[in-house]
C-alpha cells in the first residue's frame, strides 16, 4: 500500500503532466493557451531530463498533426490545450480517429464560445462527447474531479488509447488545473513497444504499413466505420466509470462531474443533514456515459438534478439514459462562474418539494431587470 509519506502537494495540471511522463509518454507537442499553461511549462522542464521531447508547435493545428505523426511512429504522445485551441485541433483529432491512432489530449476547459473567458467552464461537453471532429467517431473522455484523479486518469488514458486504438480526451477545467492538493503519483512504467501497425519503416521484413483515413470506395469506408463501431461498443460495455455517493436510498440524485461534482457533494451532505435523501452520481467517463447505473437509479429515485458549468449539456445524456422516466432538473452557471454549495442545496430542496426547473441564474433578471 502507498504510504502517506508518498504524498506530494501539486497543482492539478502539474500532477497530470508528471503522471503522463510516468505512463511512459516521452513526446509532447503543444501551443500556449490559458489555463493549461502549467502542463506545457512542467513538461518543457521535465521531458529533456527523461530523454523525451517537448516541442512548441507553430499552432494548435500543427501540434495535433505532430501528435498524429508521432502516434503513427508508435510513440506514446500527448498534447494539451484549452477550449478555443481544442476547436483548432478538431481537424487532426478526426483524422486520428479515422486512422485509429492512439494519443492523449488534454482540454483544460475555459468559458466559450469564441474567445469566451479564462475562468473554469464545462461548456465543451457536447464537443468532447460527440466525437470532436467531423465524421462518425468518438473519443474516450475522462472527467477527473480531484488532483489525484488528474494523475490517475491520464495514467490510465494512455493504456486505454493503446488498447482500443483511439485518441483519449481528459476533460478538465481551469479550477482543477490550477488548484493544489496532495497526490500520490503512480509508479513509472515503460511505453508498450508492440505496435505492429506503426509506420516505423518496413526494415524489409514485412508488408508496408499505411496510416490512413481515406477510403474512396464507399463500401470499404462503411466497413471500416462499422468495425470501429464494434470497438466503440466494447468501450461502452467495459469502460463506463462513475462514483456513486449516497445514491442507494436517494430520492434526489444529483448528477455532476469534474469541479462541479465537488460542490455538489457538499450540497448533498448539507441536504442529508437536513433530512433530505440526496445522493451524487458523478460520471468519471463522459463517453462512454455511465448509462447503466443511471438506468438502475431511475428505478428508485424520484428525480434527478444536473449541475453543470454550462447552459445544460450533460443533461441530455442523463435524460437519454433514463428515457425521461423521471424528472431531470437543471441548475447551472456558465461563463466562468462556479456554482456554490448553497445554490445547489437550494435546488435539492426544490427538487425534494417536487418542483421542476431549469435554471441558470441571470444577474440582471434577479435584480428585477434594473
Amino acid at each position, binding site marked *: 500500500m502507498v504510504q502517506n509519506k508518498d504524498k506530494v502537494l501539486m497543482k492539478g495540471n502539474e500532477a497530470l503532466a508528471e503522471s503522463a511522463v510516468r505512463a511512459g509518454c516521452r*513526446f509532447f*507537442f503543444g501551443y500556449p493557451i490559458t489555463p493549461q499553461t502549467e502542463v506545457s511549462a512542467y513538461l518543457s522542464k521535465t521531458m529533456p531530463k527523461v530523454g523525451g521531447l517537448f516541442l512548441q508547435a507553430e499552432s494548435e493545428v500543427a501540434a495535433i*498533426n*505532430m501528435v*498524429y505523426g*508521432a502516434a503513427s*511512429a508508435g510513440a506514446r504522445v500527448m498534447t494539451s490545450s484549452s477550449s478555443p485551441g481544442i476547436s483548432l485541433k478538431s481537424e487532426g483529432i478526426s483524422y486520428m480517429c479515422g486512422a485509429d491512432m492512439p494519443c492523449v489530449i488534454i482540454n483544460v476547459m475555459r468559458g466559450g464560445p469564441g474567445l469566451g473567458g479564462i475562468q473554469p467552464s464545462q461548456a465543451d461537453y457536447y464537443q468532447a462527447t460527440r466525437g470532436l471532429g467531423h465524421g462518425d467517431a468518438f473519443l474516450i473522455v475522462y472527467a477527473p474531479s480531484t488532483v489525484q484523479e488528474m494523475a490517475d486518469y491520464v495514467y490510465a488514458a494512455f493504456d486505454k488509447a493503446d488498447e482500443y486504438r483511439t485518441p483519449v480526451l481528459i476533460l478538465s477545467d481551469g479550477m482543477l488545473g490550477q488548484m493544489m492538493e496532495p497526490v500520490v503519483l503512480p509508479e513509472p512504467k515503460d511505453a508498450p513497444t508492440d505496435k505492429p501497425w506503426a509506420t516505423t519503416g518496413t526494415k524489409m521484413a514485412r508488408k*508496408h504499413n*499505411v496510416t490512413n483515413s481515406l477510403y474512396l470506395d464507399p463500401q470499404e469506408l462503411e466497413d471500416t466505420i462499422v468495425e470501429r463501431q464494434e470497438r466503440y461498443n466494447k468501450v461502452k460495455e467495459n469502460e463506463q466509470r462513475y462514483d456513486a455517493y449516497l445514491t442507494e436510498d436517494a430520492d434526489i440524485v444529483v448528477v455532476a462531474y469534474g469541479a462541479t461534482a465537488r460542490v455538489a457533494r457538499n450540497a448533498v451532505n448539507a441536504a442529508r443533514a437536513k433530512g433530505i435523501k440526496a445522493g451524487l452520481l458523478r460520471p468519471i467517463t463522459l463517453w462512454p456515459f455511465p448509462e447503466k447505473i443511471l438506468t438502475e437509479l431511475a428505478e428508485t429515485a424520484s428525480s434527478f438534478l444536473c449541475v453543470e458549468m454550462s447552459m445544460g449539456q450533460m443533461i441530455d445524456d442523463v435524460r437519454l439514459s433514463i428515457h425521461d422516466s423521471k424528472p431531470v432538473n437543471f441548475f447551472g452557471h456558465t461563463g466562468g462562474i462556479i456554482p456554490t454549495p448553497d445554490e445547489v442545496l437550494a435546488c435539492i430542496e426544490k427538487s425534494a418539494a417536487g418542483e421542476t426547473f431549469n435554471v441558470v441564474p441571470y444577474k440582471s433578471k434577479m435584480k428585477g431587470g434594473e
Partner: protein
Amino acid sequence: MAEELKVQRPHCLTDVNFSYCPGCGHGIVNRILAELIDEMGIEGDSVIICPVGCSVTMYNFFNCDMIEAAHGRAPAVATGVKRVLPDTFVFSYQGDGDLASIGMAETVHSATRGENITVIFINNAIYGMTGGQMAPTSLPGQVTQTSPYGRDTNIAGYPVRICELVSTLDGTALAQRVTVDTPAHVRQAKAAIKKGIEYQQRKLGYSIIEVVSSCPTNWGFEPVEAMQWLRENMLPYYPLGVYKDKGAELEAAQKGGE
C-alpha cells in the same frame, strides 16, 4: 539472341498502376523518387507522407511505410515521425495548394526549425485533384476554374515563390527548383532529390526540391503542348536553380579555412 532486362519497376513500387493523368509530372517524380530509394537502399527505413492532392493515394504505389495526412499538414506529421524516429528517412510529398496555401505555416515552421525531412514540392500552378482551381502559384493572368477571366493580381494577389522564400530561413539546408520536361532535366531533378536525402542523413536541416510540373488535364493542353507552355510561362516566373545549399556553404567555408 537472349533478351536482356534493361529497365524494371523499382522494388519499392507496388504493382499498382499510377493513377496520374498522361503528361503529369507526378508520375515522373514518383518514379525517380522510387529509383533513388532503391539505389540508396533505404526502402526499409523510409516513411513517406502524402497529404491531400493528386498524390494522396501514393500509399497504394509505394512499398515503404506510408502516412496520409490532412491538407497542408504533412510537414507537421513528418515532424512527429522524425522526432520519434530520428534515423528514419522521412519524406513529405506535397502539391502547391497544400504546401504554399493551406500548409504555408507548417512549411515555413518546419523549415525554420530545420526539421531533418525531405520535401518534394510539385508546383503545377493549379489545384489538380479538385478539378483546376487557382493555386497560390497560378501565374498572373492564368485562366483556371476559379479565375475564369485570368488571375487578376488586384483581386487575388501574386504567386508565391517558395524556394526564394524558404531560402531566407536558417533551418533550410537545401532549396532547389527543378523541372522534368526533358530527360536532362529529369536527371537534374533526380540529383537534387538525392542531395536532399543525403542532407537529411547528414542532419543538415530541411530540404525542399520544388519541381515545376505540368497539369495537361486542368491546363487544357495535350501533354506535349503542356511541356511547351511550362517552358514559356512557368520557367520565366519560377527560375530553375539552387536557392540554398548548406552543404555547399559548409564545403566553401571549409576550403576558405584551409
